[in-house]
């Protein structure tokens, strides 16, 4: 068992690498660039901005830099000389800085000196130096765990953005999942046990209604009814726990409507799948055997029927769970939740290359983990799979 899990975990690395590679080249091929705007800039400005983010390099090199294999130039400064000036004092605290002289295309490394530019010019009597670039070479990329700076949210790194926004999506996702599992499995199981009675039709009709009402209809509907007409819950927002809450205990009530919107939608799917799976299992021989053995109905249902019947639900839940906890764009937009889900879509529409890659890799890791958990869970639910 542990060997199996270990093997799967090792497999994560090539899979993530493949995803990173495909995504990297995909976003670069898409039309539009991260810096374009309604008000156009001149080509020079665009080129300089691109150069600032290292996008003037050939694509393969940018790829290697992104992976963290090749070093990139950071903290680049350009020292320019006015005509007639032949030396300039320039102080830098940066150790390990590299110096590039444009006129001669010569690259020199000088270390641990705060006045080295002046010294460099003393030592080199090269004439016609007009420009000197000073930068530090640094490897920081995927291998170092750095996802890079966001192009859109200036001054924020992709790591920061994910760190800030994921907990919010996770919190909401867990509530929704609890609602979905509780309502879905209960309704599905009852419907299967009471097939073709009112107890089957009623919950299944609700489930169908839940499927027919997509979240962008359900959300505003709940907001209208419970937020604006009945005034039970706030219509949107995301307040802190224990802070200026809406409930006496500091329990933030703004979680209720988004969690229900998302929860009901998945509950409907879970209910349908559970019912189907249960029906399948209930007609199998071992259930008849179990009943014949005289086991109580509860035991038959919970221990045997539910275990087998949940198989399709569990297969569905792996990816669905990853989707829920990494946030839903629609829900987070309707309820203005500062979660991760918005970044998935907004990063793509903004062509924020690093943020797209960062969110995709993060989501990929979630998917891989959850599909692994699901495979283990399936083995536990079904002895026949376990044997393999």
């Amino acid at each position, binding site marked *: 068992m542990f060997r199996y899990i270990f093997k799967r975990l090792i*497999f994560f690395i090539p*899979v993530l690498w*493949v*995803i990173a590679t*495909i*995504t990297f080249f*995909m*976003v670069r*091929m*898409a*039309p539009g660039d991260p810096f374009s705007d309604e008000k156009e800039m001149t080509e020079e400005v665009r080129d300089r901005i691109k150069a600032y983010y290292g996008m003037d390099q050939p694509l393969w090199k940018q790829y290697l830099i992104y992976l963290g294999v090749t070093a990139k130039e950071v903290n680049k400064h350009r020292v320019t000389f006015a005509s007639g000036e032949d030396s300039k004092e320039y102080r830098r605290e940066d150790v390990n800085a590299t110096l590039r002289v444009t006129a001669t295309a010569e690259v020199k490394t000088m270390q641990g000196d705060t006045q080295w530019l002046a010294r460099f010019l003393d030592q080199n009597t090269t004439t016609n130096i007009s420009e000197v670039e000073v930068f530090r070479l640094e490897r920081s990329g995927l291998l170092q765990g750095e996802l890079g700076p966001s192009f859109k949210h200036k001054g924020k790194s992709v790591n920061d953005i994910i760190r800030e926004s994921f907990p919010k999506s996770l919190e909401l996702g867990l509530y929704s999942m609890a609602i979905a599992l509780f309502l879905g499995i209960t309704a599905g199981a009852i419907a299967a046990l009471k097939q073709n009675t009112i107890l089957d039709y009623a919950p299944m009709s609700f489930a*169908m*209604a839940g*499927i*027919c*009402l*997509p979240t*962008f*209809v359900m959300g*505003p*509907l709940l907001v*209208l009814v419970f937020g604006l007409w009945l005034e039970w819950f706030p219509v949107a927002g995301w307040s802190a726990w224990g802070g200026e809450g809406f409930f006496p205990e500091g329990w933030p009530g703004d979680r209720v409507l988004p969690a229900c919107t998302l929860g009901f939608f998945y509950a409907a*799917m879970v209910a*349908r*799948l559970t*019912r*189907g*799976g249960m*029906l*399948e299992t209930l*007609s*199998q021989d071992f259930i008849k055997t179990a009943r014949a053995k005289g086991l109580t109905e509860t035991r038959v249902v919970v221990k045997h029927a539910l275990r*087998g019947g949940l*198989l*399709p639900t*569990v*297969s*569905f839940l*792996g*990816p*669905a769970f*990853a989707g829920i906890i990494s946030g839903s764009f629609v829900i987070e937009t309707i309820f203005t939740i500062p979660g991760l889900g918005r970044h*998935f*879509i907004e990063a*793509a*529409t903004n062509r924020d290359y690093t943020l*797209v890659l960062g969110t*995709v*890799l993060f*989501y*990929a890791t979630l*998917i891989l983990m959850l*599909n692994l958990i*699901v495979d283990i869970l*399936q083995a536990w639910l*079904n002895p*026949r*799979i376990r*044997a*393999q």
Partner: protein
Amino acid sequence: MKRDRLADVKFDEGTSLWKDARRRLFQNKMAVFGLCAFSLVTLLSFVGPSLLPYDHETIDLPYQARPPLSDKHSFVCPNHDYVHLYSVDENCYVCNTPLEPAAIQPARHLMGTDKLGRDLCAAVLRGGRVSLAVGFMATAVSLVIGVIWGAVAGYFGGRVDQFLMRIVDVLYALPFLIFVVLLMVMFGRNFLLLFFAIGFVEWLTMSRIVRAQVMALKNQEFVEAAVALGYGRMRIIFCHLLPNLLGPVIIYTTLTVPAVMLLESVLSFLGLGVQAPDTSWGVLIKQGAEGMEDYPWLLLFPAAFFSLTLFSLNFIGDGLRDALDPKSSKD
């Protein structure tokens, strides 16, 4: 293709299964209701628009957002033929002379008009064409790929399974939006692309469900018996395992149809999908949702058609599952 394989099933498991299934299907009242309702919706979508007095394209701005069954009394300016309004109180906005009543148009808008004064009924029926086509084509694509992929992965297991399932993981993670934009750039605006783009994402979960079911089933006695009889692997997968997977597959398929129809509205947002003034249920519902407080009928009617279709599909799906269940035939 699928039908042929089901025919094989019949040959393997007894001559009366197919006939039995049909009999059982037609005994199921809900399934029959579903079939009728679904046929009606399809018929209305494809034939209905030509029977209506209005088309879905003609914009009539002054007559915008009228509730269902509103009257249509038009007034025109005697000097400017393009000035027509629907209120007696107003004068011509060019020359400010009083308006004169125009010939009354007898036909009312059955479902009211949308925000640009177009007939909603025509739009809903028209939208059905696109939605049904997308719903079926894309679902079929995802069904075929998903079932084959999952069944092969589940049955062979080991390295094959690892390889196939990791591809699924990769595809789950790729950014869909960028993918669609790239497709558009490479192939231009193309309706076939729509099926491909949607099918591309929707088969993944199906394959995982099928894989799990196959893994659970493949060590059961009837499979062992087939192996002992020396049948080929493909034959075992498609003739022996697949019929036993029908339950979850049908259910997940009925869940895929709405997802696909709604995904189409997202693609329309990106410029793939239908282009205005053509429309689809997904697009209509999305637009309706934005004004549900002030113009509820704009949401209500498309949503009603959408739901009716899904409900009936669902009943048909349940009926089919019960009818085709190889285990229940043993009872």
